[in-house]
C-alpha cells in the first residue's frame, strides 16, 4: 500500500482545519453522540490524553515528513487500554497488534521510548528495529501480522496456567482479524485447554478500508459462542462503566475461563497515514462518538486544563526525542 500524506489527516481528526476553538477538540460541526460520560479519575484522563496527543503528534510528524514508513493510530479507541489498565498486572502478558501505541502507553506510560522507536532515535524501546508495530518489552509484545498473535497468546497462557496460576495472556485484535483462520485454531485451544486468555476485540467497524458488514458474516459474539467462549460486549466509552463490568469477567479469565471482550469502538483517523476513503458523513459519525469530544462537552472544566498540560508535555517529548541522535543497532540474527 502506498499513501500520500499531508497534515490534513491530523487536522481532520483534530478539527483544527475547521477552526475549532480549542486545538484537539472534535470540531464544531458535530453534536456529541451517546449518553453523558461520568467524571474520570485524573490519572485516567491524563492517560487518555497522553495517547490522544501522542497519536496526533505522530500524524503531524508524518505530515512534515519527519517519520519513516507507516503507522496506525488508535485515535478514538484510547479508552480501551485505559479501561483495562488496572485490571492487568505486571505478571500478565499483553500481545498487541499493528494499532498498539495506546496499548503500550497504557502499560508503560513511556512516550519517550515509543516515539524514539517510531522515529529511530536513541532510547528507542527496540532500537528502532521494530518500529510502530513490533515492540517487545518485558511481558508486552506486539507484532504486525493479523491473527498470528492468538496462537502465541494461547501458548503463553498455557505456560501461565501451569507455571504461574492467576496470571493471564491478553491479546488485542480488531474486527478485521476475524478473517484469519489462526483466530479459530487458537479459540479452539483456549476453550479446550481452559486457558487464561483474554481476547480484547477493538471492533471499530472497519478493516483498513472495508466496513465490517463487507468482511464479517454473522457476529463476533456468535463466533465466540461456537467455541463455548464467553463474550462480553462493550458499547460504552465510559471508563468508569467499562472497568467494573469487566473486572469480574477478567477475574474468571484468571481461573481458566477464556473471554472475548468486544469493544464496539470508532476509528477516528485513517487506517494508517492518509488513506481514509470513508465518506465524510461516516467520519463525522465516528467523530460524534469520540470520547474526547463528549468529555469536552460533559466536563469542560476537567478536560481543558489537563488537555493543555498533556498536549504541551507531548510537544516537549516530541521535540526532545527528535533532537536525539539516530538509534544504533547491528544485525543480530
Amino acid at each position, binding site marked *: 500500500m502506498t499513501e500520500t500524506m499531508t497534515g490534513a489527516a491530523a487536522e481532520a481528526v483534530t478539527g483544527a482545519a475547521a477552526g475549532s476553538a480549542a486545538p484537539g477538540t472534535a470540531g464544531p460541526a458535530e453534536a456529541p453522540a451517546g449518553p453523558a460520560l461520568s467524571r474520570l479519575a485524573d490519572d485516567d484522563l491524563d492517560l487518555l490524553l497522553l495517547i490522544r496527543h501522542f497519536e496526533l503528534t505522530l500524524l503531524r510528524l508524518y505530515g512534515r515528513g519527519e517519520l519513516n514508513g507507516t503507522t496506525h493510530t488508535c485515535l478514538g479507541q484510547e479508552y480501551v487500554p485505559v479501561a483495562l489498565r488496572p485490571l492487568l498486572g505486571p505478571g500478565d502478558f499483553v500481545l498487541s497488534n499493528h494499532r498498539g501505541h495506546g496499548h503500550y502507553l497504557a502499560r508503560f506510560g513511556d512516550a519517550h521510548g515509543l516515539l524514539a522507536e517510531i522515529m529511530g532515535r536513541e532510547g528507542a524501546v527496540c532500537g528502532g528495529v521494530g518500529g510502530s508495530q513490533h515492540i517487545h518489552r518485558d511481558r508486552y*509484545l506486539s507484532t504486525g501480522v493479523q491473527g498470528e498473535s492468538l*496462537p502465541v497468546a494461547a501458548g*503463553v497462557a498455557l505456560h501461565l496456567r501451569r507455571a504461574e496460576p492467576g496470571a493471564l495472556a491478553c491479546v488485542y485484535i480488531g474486527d478485521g482479524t476475524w478473517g484469519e483462520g489462526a483466530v479459530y485454531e487458537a479459540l479452539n485451544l483456549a476453550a479446550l485447554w481452559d486457558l487464561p486468555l483474554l481476547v480484547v476485540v477493538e471492533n471499530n467497524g472497519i478493516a483498513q478500508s472495508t466496513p465490517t458488514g463487507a468482511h464479517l458474516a454473522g457476529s463476533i459474539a456468535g463466533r465466540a459462542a461456537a467455541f463455548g467462549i464467553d463474550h462480553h460486549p462493550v458499547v460504552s466509552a465510559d471508563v468508569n462503566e467499562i472497568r467494573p463490568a469487566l473486572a469480574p469477567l477478567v477475574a474468571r479469565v484468571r481461573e481458566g475461563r477464556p473471554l472475548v471482550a468486544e469493544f464496539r469502538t470508532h476509528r477516528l483517523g485513517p487506517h494508517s497515514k492518509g488513506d481514509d476513503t470513508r465518506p465524510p458523513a461516516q467520519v463525522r459519525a465516528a467523530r460524534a462518538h469520540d470520547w474526547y469530544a463528549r468529555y469536552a462537552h460533559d466536563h469542560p472544566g476537567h478536560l481543558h486544563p489537563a488537555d493543555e498540560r498533556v498536549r504541551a508535555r507531548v510537544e516537549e517529548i516530541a521535540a526532545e526525542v527528535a533532537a536525539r541522535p539516530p538509534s544504533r543497532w547491528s544485525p543480530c540474527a
Partner: protein
Amino acid sequence: MRVAENLNAALHGLLDDDPAAYVLGEDVLDPYGGAFKITRGLSTRFPGRVITTPISEGALTGVAAGLALAGNTAVAEIMFGDFATLAFDQLCNFAAKSVSMYGSRLPLRMIVRCPTGGGRGYGPTHSQSLQKHFVGVPGLALYEMSPFHDNREVLAAMVERGEPCLFFEDKVLYTRPAGQAGPLLRVRRDGDLAVVEPVVPELADRPDCVIVAPGGTAHRAMEAMRSLLLEEEIACRLLVPSRLYPLDAEALLPHLGRVVLVAEESAPGGAWGAEVAHQVHQRAWERLRGPVRLVCSRASVIPTAAHLEREVLVSAPAIHRAVREAVRRAAQEAPRG
C-alpha cells in the same frame, strides 16, 4: 539401535533433563505415540508436558512459540513435514522474527520436527522434502536427522541456538540402524560434519569426488559410493552436515576435492544444494575442476505407486550416474589456475 529409537530416546532425555520442556503435536499421546511412533512413551512418563493438539499446524507452532516466549523449551511435531506450509507464518513472520526484530536478541528455544520425504508410498502431499522453502530466513535454522548424528546431541544443539529450528526427519531413515556406514565404508566425525569414506586408506585420502548430502539422502549416497567403487573404481567421500542452514561452509572446506556434488531429495529449483554450491564456489572455486553438481529428485509431484515414485525420487543409481559423469568431465578439463 534404529534411528527412530535413538530419536525417541533423545526426546525422553530432553524432557527428563529440562523440566520446562514440552512436546506437542497431533496424536502424540500414548498408546498411539505419534504417527511415526517417535513420541512413544513420552506422555506416560511426562504427563502434562506432552500435549496432543487439534489438527492445527499453524496454532500448534504458535503455541510452541508462545511457550518458548515464556521461557520454556518447546518441541512441536508436524505429523508430515508437508504440513509445515500451514505453519509458515508462525515460523517465518513470528518465531524467526521475534528472536531479532525487537532490537536485542530474544532467545526462543523451539524445535519443529518435520517427518519428511518419500519412499513410503504416501503420495504427492505426504512425501515432499520442503527444506528449500525455509532456507535463508534469518533467525530460522534448519537441521536434518542423520544416521551418523546422535539425536540427543542434535536436539541439544538446536535448543542451545536459542532460535526456532526446523528438524527434518527422513521417514525412511527411522527404520535404519543408527551410526553404521555399511560394507566398504567407514564413518568418522569432524565436528558437526559426518565424513564417510572407503575403508581402504589410499582411497579415502584421495577421493575422486566429494558428495555433500543431508542425512535423509546419506544411505542412497553410500549405496552409490559402493557401486562406484566396485563398478567404476571411483572413490568418493560423503559429507553429511547436521545443520543445513545456516550452513557452516568453512567446515566443508578441508574435506573438499576437485569434484563436488550435492545430492538431496528435494525437487529441483532453488534447492538447498544451490546454496551449498554457492558457498563452495565462493570459497573454493580455484580448487574445483568444474562447478558443484546438483542431484535432486525430478521436477514432478511424487506419485503414490511404488514403481512411479521410484522414477521421481533421487536414487542411488542417479547419484552414481551423476558422480561418474562429473568425474569423467573433470578428467577431460584442464586443471584450473
